[in-house]
C-alpha cells in the first residue's frame, strides 16, 4: 500500500447522482485485487476531515472509482476537475477470493449488485472473465435510474439480469426474488460462489439464501472508517471468530462468518 498524489484523468457524471473518477495511480493499479478499496482525501482543508473509502471499480492505466455524491466529502470530490490531484491511499483491505479451478465441479460465479454495490463487482467480473469462469450477474436497485454498470457487466458476460423494486426496468421485485428465479432455471452441476455487494438488508437476505443452498457467499461490507489501515479499530464487524476490521480483515467476508 502507498499514499500517492494521483492526477485526475477524468471525473464524469454517469447517472442521477453517480460519478466516475479515473485516477492516474499506476502503483495502486498494479498492486490491486478485486474487492480492495482506496482512501481518498476529498478536501484540501480540515473540512471535512476524514478520507473517504471507495472500492476500486476498474483497473486500467490507473484506477477508476464509481461513487455517489451523497455527503460533503463526495460532493467536493464530484466538483474536482481533470488535471487536479487527490491523495489516494491504497490498495487496502482483503479482496474477493476467486474460485479454485482445481475443484472437482466446474466453478461458476453469481454476482449480485445492489445499487452502488455494483462498483467493486465490475472489477471482479473483469477478472473472472479473464480466468474464463462462467459468471451470472444480477443487478438490482429501487428504480431504473439507480441501476448501474449494466453495460460494463454485459461486456464480460452474456448472462446479466436486472430487477427494480418498482418494476420500472427489468423484472419487478427485489434482487433476491431474481436470485431465486435464476437458481430455478439454471443447472446445479456447478460449484457456485456468490459475490454480493449492496445495502445491508440485501446482503443478509442473499446470505440466508446461500446458507440454505450451501453456496459459498462472499459479501463486501461497508462501514464508516477513520484510518482505513487497521490502526484505529473504528470499523469492527462482529464475526464468529470475534471482532474483525472491515478495513483490514475485510471489506470482503465470508457471509457465514458474519454475525448478522
Amino acid at each position, binding site marked *: *500500500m*502507498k*499514499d500517492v498524489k494521483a492526477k485526475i484523468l477524468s471525473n464524469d457524471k454517469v447517472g442521477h447522482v453517480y460519478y466516475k473518477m479515473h485516477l492516474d495511480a499506476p502503483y495502486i493499479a498494479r498492486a490491486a485485487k478485486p474487492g480492495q478499496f482506496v482512501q481518498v*482525501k476529498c478536501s484540501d482543508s*480540515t*473540512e*471535512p*476531515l*476524514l*478520507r473517504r473509502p471507495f472500492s476500486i471499480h476498474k483497473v486500467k492505466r490507473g484506477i477508476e472509482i464509481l461513487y455517489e455524491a451523497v455527503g460533503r466529502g463526495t460532493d467536493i470530490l464530484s466538483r474536482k476537475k481533470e488535471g487536479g490531484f487527490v*491523495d489516494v*491511499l491504497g490498495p487496502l483491505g482483503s479482496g474477493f477470493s476467486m474460485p479454485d479451478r482445481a475443484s472437482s465441479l466446474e466453478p461458476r460465479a453469481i454476482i449480485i449488485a445492489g445499487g452502488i454495490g455494483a462498483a467493486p463487482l465490475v472489477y471482479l467480473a473483469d477478472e473472472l472473465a479473464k480466468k474464463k469462469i462462467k459468471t451470472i450477474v444480477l443487478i438490482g436497485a429501487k428504480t431504473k435510474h439507480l441501476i448501474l454498470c449494466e453495460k460494463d457487466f454485459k461486456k464480460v458476460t452474456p448472462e446479466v439480469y436486472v430487477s427494480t423494486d418498482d418494476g420500472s426496468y427489468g423484472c419487478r421485485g427485489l434482487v433476491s426474488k431474481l436470485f431465486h428465479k435464476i437458481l430455478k432455471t439454471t443447472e446445479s452441476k456447478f460449484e457456485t460462489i456468490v459475490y454480493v455487494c449492496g445495502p445491508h438488508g440485501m446482503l443478509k437476505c442473499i446470505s440466508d439464501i446461500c446458507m440454505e443452498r450451501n453456496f459459498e457467499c462472499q459479501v463486501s461490507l461497508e*462501514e*464508516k*472508517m*477513520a*484510518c*482505513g*489501515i*487497521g*490502526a*484505529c*479499530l*473504528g*470499523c*469492527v464487524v462482529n464475526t464468529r471468530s470475534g*471482532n474483525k476490521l472491515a478495513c*483490514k480483515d475485510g471489506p470482503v467476508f465470508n457471509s457465514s462468518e458474519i454475525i448478522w
Partner: protein
Amino acid sequence: MIKVKIGKLKLKNPVMTASGTFGYAREFEKLVNLKQIGAIITKTITLNPRQGNLMPRICETPSGMLNAIGLQNEGLDDFLREKMPYLSRIGTPIIVSISGNNIDEFFILAKRLDKIRNISGIELNISCPNINCEGLVAQDAKETYEVVKAVRKITTKTVITKLSPNVTDIVKIARSAEDAGTDAVSLVNTFLGMAIDINTRKPKLGNATGGLSGPCIKPIAVRMVYEVSKNLDIPVIGIGGIMNAADAIEFMLAGAAAIQAGTANFIEPGVCGKIIKGIEEYLKKHKIEDVRSIVGKLDISK
C-alpha cells in the same frame, strides 16, 4: 538541533504518535519511516482483553471526529508476546500506554512492563472517556496522585501521565501527578462529546458519547498546555489537533517540550515525518540553533 529530553528519555525529535491513533506501529510500516519518529506511543493495553464498544464507534464532526472505541485490545500477555517483538526491532523509543480498572491493575501493568528492556516509557491513560465507569481517575486529583504514586514506586522507566480535559481545573490534576512523581504530563486526551442523527433520532455512536479530537479542539488544548506548563516544573507534552509543523510549534511556544500527533495520522499517514521536517525548516528560517529554546517562549508582553 531538534533533540529533546523527557525525564531521562532522550528523543531525536519532539514528535510522538498519540496512543490509539497508531495501533502498534506495524499497521503503518509500509507507509512511514517508523525509525524517524521521536517516540511511538502504543494503543492502550489493559491487563485483560477488552472487546471494546458497540458500533458505530466513530463519527466525523466539523473539523474533527468522535471516537468511542472503548479500549479494545488483546490484553497484556498478548501484547508482550505478539506486539512487543516487532516494536523492539523498530529502533526508536517505544512508550506503552496502559489503563487499569483500579490502582492494582495499573500497578501490575507497570510492574510487568518495567521488566521489559525495550520499553522506554509508560504513559498512564487515566483519561479515556469511553469506558463505562463512575468517574475517571484523571478527574480526581487524589486518585491521580495515588495511581501515579503506585506506578512510580514500581518502575524507574519514564512515566508520562495523560490528562483529561474534561475537568474544571486541569492544573490541579497536573500538579497532583507532578507531586506523585510523574516524569511528564501529556495533555489533552479527548473531550467528551456527542452527535445525533436527526432522521433516526439516535446517537451516531453506539456508546452514545465519545471523545472529540482533531483540529477543532486545538485552541482549547493550546490554552490548557499553556496553563499547565506555567504552573509545573516537569515537561509537558502537547496533544490536540496537531496537523502540521505550525501547530506543533504553537504548542511548543505555549510550553510543550514535545508533542503528539494523533488524528492527523488517519488523514495523512506520513504526517509525523512532515512535522519533523517542518520544525527543522522553522528553526532554520528563524536562525534558531536548538528547538528547546522555543519551549514556553510565548511572548505575552503588552
